[in-house]
């Protein structure tokens, strides 16, 4: 009983902060989601409208399209970051000249604010002045214009996200790889396992928690990305890169439709939690169950 009280006391600051900055705003957004509220409109007061915001949402083609684009973006970005991050982490495990310098340079994108990343990539991809369209034109004769080409605009948002966030994955997986014991690898080599077998049966199971945590963090980030994409493409051309975060931003700020924006935010939170939970069930819970049985 005493240890419980001490535990709760130690948790109290975290619970208080979580309550003030997490739970109370969430409950407020949930409350607003059931109201029509445009504080800058003719009637600036909240009017209760039941589930109408959600009813409007399930018929909103722009929203449904943005879900599809966001899932596609998250899939390509997170998968590429994890794969690339793992290979870079393996590279940093080896000794080679200039490893420290390379690791420092490789980590630099992490300290750049997303809005700055978006600005820099926009400068680099602007057709008349950017270095990327210039090089693509002079080397391959390819005319890059992300203001017109929806596929390239989408690809560039993914590449920008990979550039920005792969170092995070690398550092997490590097920490996991460094902390692994040597004995299982030596044992596997003695048993005659090849590199693929060692990776699949020894390394991967042991770094699974680190991979899972990284995928969760990156998936949640990718599903609510706004500022980088807003700076690079502004959601265009058309709605090709209008991801969910950007969609909500456009509803809440330019249109000041707070009720509908809140309903959309709640659904995005719902989707994020469902995806993370499904991933958790697929990778951890079922495995634990198999082991237990």
């Amino acid at each position, binding site marked *: 009983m005493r240890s419980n009280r001490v535990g709760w006391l130690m948790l109290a600051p975290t619970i208080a902060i979580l309550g003030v900055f997490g739970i109370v705003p969430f409950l407020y957004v949930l409350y607003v989601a059931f109201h029509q509220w445009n504080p800058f409109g003719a009637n600036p007061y909240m009017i209760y409208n039941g589930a109408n915001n959600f009813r409007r949402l*399930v018929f909103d083609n722009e929203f449904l399209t943005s879900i599809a684009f966001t899932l596609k973006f998250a899939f390509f970005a997170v998968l590429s970051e994890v794969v690339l991050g793992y290979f870079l982490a393996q590279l940093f495990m080896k000794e080679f000249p200039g490893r420290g310098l390379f690791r420092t340079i490789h980590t630099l994108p992490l300290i750049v604010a997303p809005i700055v990343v978006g600005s820099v990539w926009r400068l680099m991809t602007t057709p008349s002045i950017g270095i990327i369209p210039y090089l693509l034109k002079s080397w391959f004769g390819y005319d890059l214009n992300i203001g017109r080409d929806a596929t390239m605009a989408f690809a560039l948002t993914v590449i920008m996200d990979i550039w920005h966030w792969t170092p995070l994955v690398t550092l997490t997986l590097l920490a996991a790889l460094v902390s692994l014991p040597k004995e299982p690898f030596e044992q596997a080599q003695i048993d005659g396992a090849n590199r693929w077998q060692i990776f699949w049966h020894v390394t991967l199971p042991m770094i699974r928690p680190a991979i899972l945590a990284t995928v969760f963090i990156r998936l949640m980030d990718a599903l609510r990305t706004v500022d980088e994409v807003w700076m690079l493409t502004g959601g265009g051309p058309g709605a090709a890169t209008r991801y969910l975060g950007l969609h909500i931003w456009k509803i809440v700020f330019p249109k000041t439709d707070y009720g509908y924006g809140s309903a959309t935010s709640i659904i995005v939170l*719902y989707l994020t939690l469902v995806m993370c*939970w499904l991933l958790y*069930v697929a990778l951890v*819970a079922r495995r634990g*169950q198999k082991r237990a049985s």
Partner: protein
Amino acid sequence: MEHMVDLDAVDDEANTIVASPQRTGFLPIVTNWFDRVFVGIYLFVALELFWMRFLEQSIPLSVCHLLAIALGVLIVWRG
């Protein structure tokens, strides 16, 4: 060193603390009550959204409320 900590006793104490009883119901995973409430709420929301999109024109949403609550209770009770 007057106060030595008995690590074995601490481990034993930790092993006796059961956060929440886990069990296997008709859901394909081992769950505790929080998992089942979580799944119930999520299926409730999914069913409501699906109903609003495809069925509300012919069947009122209150039918969905009843079904979703029944499903939630079933999951918490037998899931």
